């Protein structure tokens, strides 16, 4: 009798837990859909009233001009610069730490990285304004260091911990027999890494890079403070030593000034919709790589 009672209660507990878990899952999924739906609805006025001006370079809400090209361009270029600096450094450093250093040192670097990743972005922004932009301005003899390049550099520093720690994980997660088999074949140390470890780990590393890219894309405060906030394409286009604007910095500067429901507000929402769409694509792509890595 007693045994029967306890199984019954375990079963009912189990189903309660199940309901709770699936409900929380539905709530999260619902929230994502809700946000997406609201953004679609809110961005409609901009598309219908200013659709023709959206892909120009002039942004002037009083004239009903909502050209988003400078912001889109700035977002992509800042992201690219951050990746160009952070990816090679992050991956090489991870290889060094994972392949050559002791367990103790790995733990130490890991905690250091976690602290670095936990520094609030406004702090990076302040360091950017007070030091990095001044160094860039002095080093290149420019009138200001608030440039697309500076924003890219700050972002590179911010995403470095993500790349480094995820890449270290990816290398350490390679099954030990892969390494031992390669060593048993008499390969040199660099050959073991290049021909045995890297092919297995590279999908996870690609996933790590994309995840970092997603973080770079959404960063606002630090970028807003150092990029110069000018809604203009650089002249010539590859000149990253000029001030620019990203979607996030534009939103940070103007959301407070735009009235809810106006075309201006709607245009800002449309830009954030573009941003969210890119982030979702990136997340999906990095999931794909992580999954591919697991099947090897």
């Amino acid at each position, binding site marked *: 009798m007693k045994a029967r009672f306890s199984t019954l209660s375990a079963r009912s507990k189990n189903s309660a837990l199940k309901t709770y878990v699936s409900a929380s899952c539905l709530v999260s999924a619902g929230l994502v859909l809700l946000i997406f739906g609201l953004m679609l609805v809110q961005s409609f006025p901009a598309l219908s009233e200013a659709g023709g001006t959206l892909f120009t370079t002039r942004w*002037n*809400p*009083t*004239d009903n001009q909502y050209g988003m090209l400078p912001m889109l361009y700035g977002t992509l270029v800042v992201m690219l610069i951050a990746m160009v600096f952070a990816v090679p450094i992050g991956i090489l450093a991870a290889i060094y730490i994972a392949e050559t250093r002791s367990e103790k040192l790995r733990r130490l670097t890991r905690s250091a990285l976690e602290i670095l990743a936990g520094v609030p972005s406004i702090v990076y922004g302040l360091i950017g*304004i007070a030091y990095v*932009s*001044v160094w860039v*301005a002095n080093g290149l003899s420019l*009138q*200001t*260091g*608030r440039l697309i390049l500076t924003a890219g550099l700050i972002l590179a520093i911010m995403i470095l911990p993500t790349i480094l720690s995820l890449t270290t994980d990816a290398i350490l997660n390679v099954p030990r027999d892969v390494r031992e088999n390669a060593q048993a074949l008499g390969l040199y140390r660099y050959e073991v890494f290049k021909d045995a470890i890297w092919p297995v780990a590279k999908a996870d590393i690609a996933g790590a890079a994309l995840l970092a890219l997603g973080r770079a894309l959404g960063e606002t405060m630090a970028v807003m403070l150092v990029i*110069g*906030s*000018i*809604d203009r394409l650089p002249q010539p286009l590859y000149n990253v030593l000029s*001030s620019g604007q990203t979607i996030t910095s534009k939103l940070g*500067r*103007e959301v*407070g*000034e735009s*009235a*809810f429901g*106006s075309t201006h507000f709607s245009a800002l929402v449309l830009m954030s919709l573009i941003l969210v769409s890119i982030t979702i694509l990136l997340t999906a792509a990095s999931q794909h790589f992580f999954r591919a890595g697991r099947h090897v």
Partner: protein
Amino acid sequence: MNNKTLNFTILAICSLALYGCSRPEIVSISGSTTVLPAVSKAAQAYQNRHGQNIIVNAGGSGSGFNQLAEGQTDIGMMSRDITEGEIARFSQHVFTPIAIGRDAVVPVVSSEIYEAGVTQLSFAQMTDIYKGRIDNWNAVGGPDKEIFVIDKESSSGTRQTFFEIVLGDKKAEAAGADLVIGSNNEEQTAMTQSDAAIGMLSLAWLNEDVRGVSIVTDIGVIIEPTLENVANGTYPISRDLNIVVRGDISPAAQGFVDYLLSPDGQDFVQNSGYVPVNKPAHSLEQ
């Protein structure tokens, strides 16, 4: 009513009463960074004297109005007039701007440029600089150096005052701009970091590194940016510093507004480098 219910009712009434007494009524204020120094000093003094909790936040004239209109704050700070568009959007409310002081918007240049001889500019020269038609200091009597033009966000009260009076259109686009910044302190930092910059600042924000230049009028009169010239009305680029309240203002907020306009409150306007509205002009000293 039995004993238990009675006890409960008494308890409920007491806690409600306590809640009513202890709940501090906070006065929240936000808006223009130009008006902010005077208001936040006055708020501190008022808080010390009357125990009234006051929160003062920056954000710019535009968001100062938006937050007030949407009911998030009690008082908005604005260094420009309320636009017709803004009034139309919130037509269900009545907004009253109250001038608490007067301020000048001063064209400023880097100290290196000032010392090299650019101590005065005309409206036409400044228009050419902001429109991108002049891009070297030697065109206005300075050294052979490219002009680094600092513009402000289009909702800024400082920018709108400057552009309306100097360029004739408060929403004009500045094709010559090299950098856009938001608040007065951001502008001050950017000016200090450059050695060939021009920008615009409120009178209270000038210092050794950021020098205000005089205005040359069409008939050749030179007007220096001083408190006296603002007070007697000769300095051309000046404006009222306003606080804005909504028709349904709370008594606590009204109390602070009255304080700001009292002689004590006006002292803080003057200490912040602005011209008070409730004081005779001859009592000013710099």
